Structure formats: structure tokens, C-alpha cells
């Protein structure tokens, strides 16, 4: 019997996974494994890190060295690992809460230092695991468990944040653009320096039902696709027409010395 070519990378005793039917985080896991496979990554030398949340569960299902379970501290762990054993490849799977809310401070400092890790921000625009509360990424006016009358806060653009803070590879794609997302992950794995790939994902259970009034994952993907625009097209539009729109593209790809910690002259 033939097995799935990526099956060998999974931690079998952790399955079945806990993602809801139609969840985008499981797609991101798939994109990552395809990218890692095509890059020929050595899984013995790979550390996958997740904090707390839906996307944070991805490392639990990967057959690698893994850290899991503390909200927002993914990059702090990664810093200790990369300073002590820089030869290890470190990939962080963060939800938008992990990356932009509780772990926001760690994010900007990891970018500033150009820590040589890959951070995948699985942005489902809400706090999914806790029940669909508003996140710093929830679009304006959208309803959530904690914004029943609509969100009045302006959302973060995590890619612009990372770029401003000094990240040397930054890209944004969506689960509706799987090939582009996978290729960006390959670029990130091959990049030396802080790489941030944001992937906008559908959350049928919470964001879908509460904000979009549909629990159908295909509707969620359609909504993401209809609210996305490529970088090239976005450049031709005035800024006010880009509100509530996801600009997609590979935004930054630069070389800068990576952080190696203290040194003696």
C-alpha cells in the first residue's frame, strides 16, 4: 500500500489532530511539510516551536524536537536555542495572538536582532482555541465573542511591523493561494536571518460563524480570496481603498548579519 509522501514526517502517536474540519492551520502544516521536504531539511536538526493556540499545535504533530505550551514565548525559546546551538534549524508556528498580542514585544526584538529563525504567523484573525475573541488582527467592524457590536480597534499589519522592526525576509499569502504560500515557506527556510511568513487562514468555527455568518470553510476561503490583492495591483490603488484588504506578496528579502550573541574581540 502506498503511503502519503509526507506521512513520514508526522508524530503518529499524536494523531488524530485536534483541528476543526476545514481549519486553515492544518493546511499550513501541509504547506510547511511540502516546503521542508522540497528543501531536504534534516528533521533530526529541526526544532519546531508552538506557544498556545490552534496553530501552536502544529509542532505537536511533527516528528521533530518540539516545544509547546506557553503563550507568546516562542521566540524567547528560539533565542536560547539559536544562541547555544546555532546549527539547529528553528521554526516557530505562531497564531496571530502569539505573534502580535502577548508575544509582540519578543517579535519586534527578534526582528531587530535578525535572529536566524523562521516564524510562520498563522493568522486566522481571531483567538480560535479560546472561543473566537477579538485579536489585534481582527478587521475593523467585525463581530467576535468580545466585540459583539463590532470591532472598533485598528488591526495590526504584522508584515509591516516585522519589516519596520528589521526582519530580513517578510511575505504574506493565504490558504487560498497554497502554491505561493508553500514557495514563500521554502524561501524562508533557505533564508539566513529572521524570516516571517504570514498566512491568512479561515477559521470556520469562530471567525467564520461570528464575523462572516458562515461556518462553511469554502465560504471562508472565498472571503479571504475576495479581500486579497497582490502587491503589484495594490501599488496602483490609493491607501483608503486598501483598508480591510490583505495585500499579498514577498515584501522583504535582504541580507544582514544574523544574531550570534556575545563575542570576544
Amino acid at each position, binding site marked *: 500500500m502506498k503511503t502519503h509522501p509526507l506521512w513520514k514526517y508526522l508524530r503518529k502517536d499524536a494523531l488524530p489532530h485536534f483541528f476543526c474540519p476545514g481549519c486553515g492551520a492544518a493546511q499550513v502544516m501541509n504547506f510547511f511539510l511540502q516546503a521542508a521536504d522540497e528543501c531536504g531539511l534534516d528533521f533530526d*536538526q529541526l526544532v519546531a516551536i508552538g506557544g498556545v493556540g490552534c496553530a501552536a499545535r502544529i509542532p*505537536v504533530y511533527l516528528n521533530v*524536537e518540539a516545544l509547546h505550551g*506557553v503563550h507568546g514565548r516562542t521566540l*524567547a525559546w528560539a533565542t*536560547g536555542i539559536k544562541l*547555544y546551538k546555532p546549527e539547529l534549524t528553528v521554526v516557530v508556528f505562531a497564531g496571530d495572538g502569539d505573534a502580535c498580542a502577548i508575544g509582540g*514585544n*519578543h517579535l519586534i526584538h527578534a526582528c531587530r536582532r535578525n535572529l536566524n529563525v523562521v516564524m510562520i504567523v498563522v493568522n486566522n484573525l481571531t483567538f480560535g482555541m479560546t472561543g473566537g475573541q477579538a485579536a489585534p488582527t481582527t478587521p475593523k467592524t467585525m463581530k467576535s465573542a468580545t466585540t459583539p457590536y463590532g470591532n472598533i480597534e485598528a488591526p495590526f499589519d504584522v508584515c509591516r511591523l516585522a519589516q519596520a522592526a528589521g526582519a530580513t525576509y517578510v511575505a504574506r499569502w493565504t490558504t487560498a493561494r497554497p502554491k505561493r504560500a508553500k514557495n514563500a515557506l521554502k524561501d524562508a527556510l533557505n533564508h539566513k536571518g529572521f524570516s516571517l511568513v504570514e498566512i491568512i487562514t479561515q477559521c470556520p468555527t469562530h471567525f467564520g460563524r461570528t464575523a462572516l455568518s458562515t461556518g462553511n470553510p469554502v465560504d471562508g476561503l472565498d472571503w479571504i480570496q475576495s479581500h486579497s490583492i497582490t502587491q503589484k495591483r495594490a501599488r496602483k490603488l490609493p491607501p483608503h481603498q486598501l483598508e480591510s484588504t490583505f495585500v499579498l506578496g514577498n515584501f522583504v528579502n535582504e541580507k544582514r548579519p544574523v544574531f550570534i550573541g556575545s563575542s570576544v574581540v
Partner: protein
Amino acid sequence: MTPRRGNHQTGIHFMLGNHAVVEGALAAGCDFFAGYPITPANEISQHMAQRMPREGGVFFQGEDELCSIFALSGASLCGAKAMTATASAGFNYMQEGIGYAVAAEIPMVIVNVMRCRGENYATQSDVMQFRWGASGDHAHIVLAPSSVQELFDYTIRAFNLAEKYRTPVMVMSETTIALMREKLVIPPPDRIETVTRKKPADPPSVFVPFKAAEDTAPPLPAFGEGYRILHSLNPHDENGAIAWSPDVFESLYRRITHKITAHYDAIVRTADFYLDDADIALVAYGSEARPARQAVRMAREKGIKAGVLKLDTVWPVPEKQLADLSRQVDCILAVEMNTGKYVNEIRRVCTGNCAVYPVTKNRGEIHTTAEIFRAVAEAKK
């Protein structure tokens, strides 16, 4: 990692307490330090910043205490002997990382230099925070040095206990001793006992990462050695898999706490001072042991049979020694520099056998000998 240069400072020194912590850590094999600036612990990170790179290790200043304490976890799982140092307000933040290190059984050393709220005056007010600050069930090992020499010695011991029991171990420092200069003797390296964590004897294909006898810690391979272990805060079974079975949860935390409490005799240490014939005992920890000893000398000159039980380990509570003492003396005075916290632990163990009274001072300064002597004389009436 580059090889260690082994630049030991063997000899007799006149050294700052905070610097003695650094020398103790390096003598114990510490090769990763992360911290965030805070007074009165700054001399630890500043001295580390100078010494560590020359020893071939890593010095890192995090953007906050959270980054520092979790960087310790990451480095320790790569095989580092890792340490941080902070002071009371910073220690608050670090509790999150300490709780994680307990649950995932990650060795590390945390030095907290206790200070008064927002100010750098003398206090012992964090004695309960050491024990109860982290969420979830845990047993903690907390050592209480009273001098510059003990800061050096106990820091080494903290690393050895952390490595042996796969757990965070804390050194309870204080403004009094951290910012004090006094004599320090650093022995030659071959006279310093160091412990390094046990590695698996089994290859990755058959190694069960969290399988261990009820009162022991399992061996710990380093990241990159091919073992591919999941380290989670969540309840996990012997394979490391997240498991929600009540049986798994119960047995995990029974082992995590028993691996410390079952080794009471190897962990808990106290020191007696004039206790042989005493009918009144002072119980003191940290810098308060110093004026307590002086007060006992004064009392003895006046014909009062007083003695001191100095608690070198404050957590686990030295229950056996305290119980023995309570059967010997008429009265115990619990000396501490706070509003009266550890006295309740002493009462828990000793009440019924002897009277227990608090001798507290919460004014940002250490007890004077005369103050403690007055308490002894009063209790003797």
C-alpha cells in the same frame, strides 16, 4: 560551542556578593546566562557579560525577564547549564518560565536578589514567592545563602541539584549579601564537585523520554541528538504525547513532586549553632542568621541557653530538623526580615511541641544583634 577556557579564579578574594554568584556559576559549569537589568542584581549580569564570553559561553540580555527565562529553557534543552539573575519585581515575571521548567523538567538556576517594593533596601519578603509564585503543582528547591562565601558555594550546589533532579533551582539572595564585599575562598577546580545531567543510555528508537521511577527524573538528551522529543507544558504521558487522562495527569505530577520530596535527606540542609543544650532556639535563614548568631553569643554571656538553627535550604521546609528542635526547646523565635511569613511554616511543624513566636522587622534594614537579643531576653522571662 567553543571549548571552555577554564579561567578559574582559585584563591582568596575580597569579593562582592553578586560577583561571587558569577564565579560560583562558572565554577559549576554554567555556559549560558540570560538576564534583564534590575537593581540590585545588575552586578551579576554585568560581571557575566565580561566573564562568560571569555569562558566560551553565551551571555544574553533579553528584552525583558520573560525572554530571559524562556531563553534559559531553550538553551538548557540544547544541553546548556543555564542561569538567570533578577530581583523581586523581575522575579514576578519569571514565575511563568519557572512553572514551565517545572512541568517540562528543564534544569536551570534562578538567582533572585530580594528587594523592597520598588526600592533596593534589605528584605526577605519574597520567601513565599519562591515557593508559591508559579502556577500549578510543584515542589521547589530554594537555597538561602547568608554570606558572600555561601553565595559562591550555594550557586554551585544549585546547578548540581538542578542537573540531578531536572528542575529549576533557586538561590534566595538578598540586598544585604549581594551588595556586600567580604572574604571569599575559591577552591581549585578539582576540589569543586559538579554534577551534569544524565543522558539516555538507549538509542532514540527505543528511548521513552518521560519514563522514570516514581521518585526520579528521566534522562535528558539535548536537541539535535536525534531523540525528537515533544516538551509541553500540558499533561503528557511517558512518550511526551499530550494526554488528558486523569491517570496520566496524576502520575506525572506525583513524579514531578516526589522526585524532590523523596530526596529530602540529600537536598535539605541546616546548620546548628549552640543548639546542644539550648532551651530557646532562634530559627533564621539568609542574612538574618548573622545577627541571630551574634545575639546567641550575647545571650550565652548572660547565661541564657540559646542557639540558632540556620536554614540553608528554605524549600523544602526542613521539617525533620524543625520537629526535632521543637521537642528539645521550650520556645522557638522565627527571625525574618518581613512582616512574618516563614514563621507560619515553622508553626505548622512545631506547634504542639513548643511555643513559636515571630521576630520580624520590615523596615528595609536587617535586624541588629541588640534587637534579636532583646527578643531572646523577653522570651526567656
